């Protein structure tokens, strides 16, 4: 697994020491003529890095010992890049990923009919040779607030289809979008994805109080039904090739927010993978807020519900009166 990583590590070390003088190691075996991509990458490196004579940024470039293939997948937690207390290879500084969204505050006004946000990020210390190399995998998750929801199952009782059983899930995200560089199951094992809450969270669905007693298999049906219904409503969206690298370290994902998206905070999370291992993650938040008249209406409805109701009646009644007056005048 660490083959390529080590290989790249050596390449890096080699380039930073000198371009022409090839030290020992696999780099010598590199048939330049046959690997233009690698060549390009090396040249880019040369351009970007300070000349090898002044290695100030990353001073000790000893022959690469071992690349960070040590940390086991289970220890990966989201939130912070694994820049842990034990930084093994000075050779290849660990990747970090930084992310942000194109719009941090989205105004939901009378014209709101859905919108699109761009989540973009960059891989610091990227070892990728080009945008197309597919060296890294990125998964982007945008999730709304969790809310308790009741899932009901109809069954036929005496000829009528009625809600017979129900399961309450206490924390179903109101909205969830996942974009990735390729299908999730190719990026990492299910275990790794689950541990980082990448996915629509079937495993996070736990029946809450007030649920009917259902068999485990039946419970699975409920969970699948949630995903199916939410996807039908356009509230759970998945785009397997929705993240694209632009260059060695910059990537972007466009996420469509549908018109029926519930307002509230959204969290965008970005995960950087390489060969099934989570290297780093980061998050960015955005806010969907009612603005203008819509906000006024909503706030008033919740803060002064009785007056709001009277206002609604007044509006309706006066509209009715006005119409009948206009028609009366037109008739006479």
């Amino acid at each position: 697994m660490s083959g390529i990583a080590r290989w790249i590590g050596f390449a890096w070390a080699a380039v930073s020491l000198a371009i022409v003088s090839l030290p020992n190691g696999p780099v010598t075996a590199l048939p330049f003529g046959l690997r233009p991509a690698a060549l390009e990458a090396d040249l880019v490196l040369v351009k970007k890095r300070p000349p090898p004579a002044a290695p100030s940024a990353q001073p000790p470039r000893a022959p690469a010992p071992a690349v960070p293939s040590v940390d086991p997948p289970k220890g990966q937690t989201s939130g912070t890049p694994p820049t842990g207390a034990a930084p093994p290879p000075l050779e290849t500084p660990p990747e970090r990923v930084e992310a942000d969204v194109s719009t941090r505050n989205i105004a939901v006004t009378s014209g709101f009919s859905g919108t699109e946000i761009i989540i973009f990020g960059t891989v610091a210390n990227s070892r990728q040779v080009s945008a197309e190399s597919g060296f890294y995998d990125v998964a982007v998750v945008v999730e709304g607030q969790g809310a308790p929801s009741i899932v009901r199952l109809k069954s036929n009782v005496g000829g009528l289809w009625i809600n017979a059983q129900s399961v309450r899930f206490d924390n179903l995200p109101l909205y969830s979008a996942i974009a990735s560089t390729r299908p999730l199951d190719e990026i990492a094992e299910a275990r790794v994805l689950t541990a980082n809450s990448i996915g629509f969270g079937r495993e996070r669905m736990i029946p809450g109080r007030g649920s009917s007693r259902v068999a485990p298999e039946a419970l699975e049906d409920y969970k699948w039904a949630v995903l199916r219904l939410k996807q039908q409503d356009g509230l759970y969206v998945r785009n397997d090739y929705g993240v694209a690298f632009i260059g060695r370290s910059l990537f972007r994902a466009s996420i469509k927010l549908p018109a029926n998206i519930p307002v509230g905070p959204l969290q965008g999370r970005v995960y950087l993978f390489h060969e099934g291992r989570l290297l780093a993650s980061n998050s960015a938040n955005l806010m969907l807020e009612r603005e203008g008249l819509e906000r006024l209406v909503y706030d008033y409805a919740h803060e002064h519900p009785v007056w709001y109701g009277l206002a609604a009646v007044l509006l309706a009644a006066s509209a009715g009166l006005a119409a009948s007056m206009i028609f009366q005048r037109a008739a006479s």
Partner: protein
Amino acid sequence: MNVYLPIAEMSMNGWLLVSMGAAVGFLSGLFGVGGGFIITPLLIFLGIPPAVAVGTGSAQIVASSMSGAVAQYRRDNVDVKMGLVLIAGGLVGTVIGVQVVRILRRLGQFDLVVSLAYVTFLGAVGTVMLLESMRSIQKVKAGGAALKRRAHAHSWLDGLPFKMRFRRSKLYTSAVPPMTIGAFVGFLAAIMGIGGGFIIVPALIYLLRMPTNIVVGTSLFQLVFVTAATTVLQSATNQTVDLPLAFFLVAGGVIGAQLGAAAGVRLKGEQLRFWLAALVLLVCFRVGYDLVAMPAELYSITPLVGGLE
């Protein structure tokens, strides 16, 4: 033209809402019904959350019935005294109904009760009215007068106390039956999210023997007040009245109601009743079909936010 509805939290085509309001308003002006039994299922069908559909539907009924009531009043078709008695009963019924709704919601079978209530009442009222109106139409064709009003039809209803004279309806009867009808309809209005016109109209015609024209105007008159009370109650308890949604429905509704009232002048009473019966039965079959037909999707999700629990 898409508009965002802040309470329903979705965007919809404004023109669609206006034309829907107009169509329902037309029926409202024509038959003297609020149209709630059409608008509420329609809004739910369009994806508006049921609680918002019920709450906002009542605001729309205020507008269209106000528009229709004024038009009818001008034609001297409103028995104000009868209307006030119905309203008094209706307010009592609404308050009781709101409490029953709370209990049913807790038991989790509110939807079923609503559907069954729709099928039962729409079916019964529609069938009776259809048969009667067909008989009347045949009688008229045969040369007789439609629905002969028996001037002194003594029944047990006349034995009740609190006799009142309803001049416009040409009735001298106890206030208890109209009050009871009003209360019953107010009760159903709260449960079914409707104005109850389709029940009050036949009840006034067949139980109290009021003339059909007066019934339509009086029904609209009392609808204005009962649905206004329902709207305020819905807003106060559930915050489920969507003003922008109501605005678009109302804009179409008031115009439709005027056209409907004008069209109603050209229809005879028994024809009016026939078509109302047909409409009521149509909605009844639609709701009933959903109860017995196997649904395509057996599961449903209800998020417990915004007071919908």
